[in-house]
């Protein structure tokens, strides 16, 4: 019986390696494109990929996740053709080419029952450095502050650190989280918590009745509209990144992901469509 099973296994392997190689035939593109990286971009890229596959039969777009740092590492090592990075590139990442496909704001969130209406930059820094440990110090109800921070390598963390001029090792976090929804759940379930997440996701959940409040930043309300207009100060691009010479298939996918044809998909994933001129 095992013999049959293994024959089947190797049969399956042999069959696919023959057809697996990327081939170019006729005028259309075909082959396989692998994207890895930011978990924020992954669901959106998956949807764009599905629509791209519908337009170009013979193309397969495989979207993997794992975080922005992984996207950069994978595109450098060649594991992925395109990386997904949900922040601005850093100076030491100048070997990469970034193509923005959408914008996303990052805002601070607190529990709905927390009376604090706004926080100044210094107050936020104090809270995250562990200097302010009780809500009464910033005009709230007395009670301990639970600082929710993002895990190392997450783009949201770097956007947050960059905006407030903080260093990762200065932060005294009580809870360290990964994805946006986890942050929303942690703050919704803890009246003393403060965290920061994607505005689109937080707005979506607050509308659906999650007990949380989005704090304004520098007097600008945390809304998707303010991110779209560019008024909200803490926002970030959702990028596709490549390294070196870009193959035709990847180029075509990137152009498609920046076109008007995917704006409805971007909005559906709670982000702001990229309104640039397309060509870079």
């Amino acid at each position, binding site marked *: 019986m*095992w013999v049959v099973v293994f024959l089947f296994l190797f049969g399956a392997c042999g069959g696919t390696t023959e057809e697996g190689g990327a081939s170019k035939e006729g005028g259309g593109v075909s082959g396989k494109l692998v994207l890895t990286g930011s978990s924020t971009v992954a669901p959106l890229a*998956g949807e764009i990929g599905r629509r791209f596959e519908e337009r170009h039969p013979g193309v*397969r777009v495989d979207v993997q996740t794992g975080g922005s740092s992984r996207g950069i590492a994978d595109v450098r090592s060649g594991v992925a053709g395109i990386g997904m990075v949900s922040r601005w590139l850093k100076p030491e990442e100048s070997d990469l080419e970034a193509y923005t496909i959408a914008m996303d704001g990052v805002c601070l969130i607190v529990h709905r029952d927390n009376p604090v209406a706004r926080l100044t930059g210094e107050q936020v820094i104090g809270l995250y450095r562990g200097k302010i440990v009780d809500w009464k110090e910033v005009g709230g109800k007395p009670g301990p502050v639970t600082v929710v921070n993002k895990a190392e390598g997450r783009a949201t963390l770097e956007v947050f650190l960059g905006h407030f001029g903080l260093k990762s090792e200065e932060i005294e976090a009580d809870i360290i989280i990964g994805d946006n929804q986890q942050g929303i*759940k942690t703050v919704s379930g803890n009246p003393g918590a403060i965290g920061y997440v994607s505005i689109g996701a937080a707005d979506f959940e607050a509308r659906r009745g999650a007990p949380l409040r989005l704090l304004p930043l520098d007097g600008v309300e945390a809304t998707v509209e303010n991110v779209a207009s560019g008024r909200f100060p803490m926002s970030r691009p959702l990028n596709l990144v490549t390294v070196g010479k870009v193959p035709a298939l990847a180029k075509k996918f990137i152009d498609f992901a920046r076109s008007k044809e995917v704006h409805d998909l971007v909005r559906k994933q709670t982000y702001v469509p990229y309104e640039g001129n397309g060509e870079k």
Partner: protein
Amino acid sequence: MKRQSKTQNQALSGWWAGTGQGNLVTGARRQSSRWRDRLAAGLCWTVAAVLLATFGWILADLLSEGLGRLSWDFFTKAPMDAGRAGGIGTVLVSTLLILAVCLLVAAPLGIATAAYLSEYTRRKSSVGRWIRGCLDLLASVPSIVFGLFGAVFFCQMLGLGFSILSGGLTLACMVLPILVRSSETGFRMVSDDLRRGAAALGMRQNTTMAFVILPAALPGIAVGLVLGIGRALAETAALIFTSGYVTRMPASLLDSGRSLSIHIYDLAMNVPGGEPTASGTALVLVVLLAAINWGAAAAMDRWRGRWSRS
């Protein structure tokens, strides 16, 4: 029956008294020891009730959130809109394929290793001790370590890429220690009388193994398989970097395919508004696990009946 329990009580209270002021069993003592019995029984019941309530709570939560999502389309269609809409048909297929690869590799290796440890080496031999030590160490390694190992070894070094094959092989590595250890226990539970009987009849070791010991050890092996399947189906960390995140219907074992638990994790933790589908998928996963457990138990019962008759 009643009488017996009374004498037991007396014996017990005698022991209690013995630790205190001598062997005198008074009426009051008997009363208090009966009270203690009731307390102990009550505590046991409470613990059991808390356990059941926890499970009931989880199930009720999943049912209330996820039941509305279940339909025929949910089981057959591919996920749409990052999983908020559409079904989990493709995810279900990928999960079963990953599980099949995992079991096809882990089961023969695991059972053979268990047989070697129990039947072909002395219990205290250094080889056996080494193998057991390594397995116990492997069993306590966090699954993300297996995931990273799989991503480097299967995906990159062997060039399998993000694929169901990589995921299944990584899971096989992870499940192997559990499978070996519980199968070994299964082999050890086989009475030595059977081995002696076989030897007295002049049966060869291999014949004894195939026709006497293996059938008798099957219940233990089945327990190992069920535990392994449970761990494999619940796994996310080992699979996210090996079998991957793709929700398309897999065309071969070299395609990337998302497993049920990764789908649940992504929808609950990463996709706003993904909760109903996450709960529905979790419900499917729970039912699948329950079905596998019951199926294994029923198959064992039938097997045992047939084996003992023949």
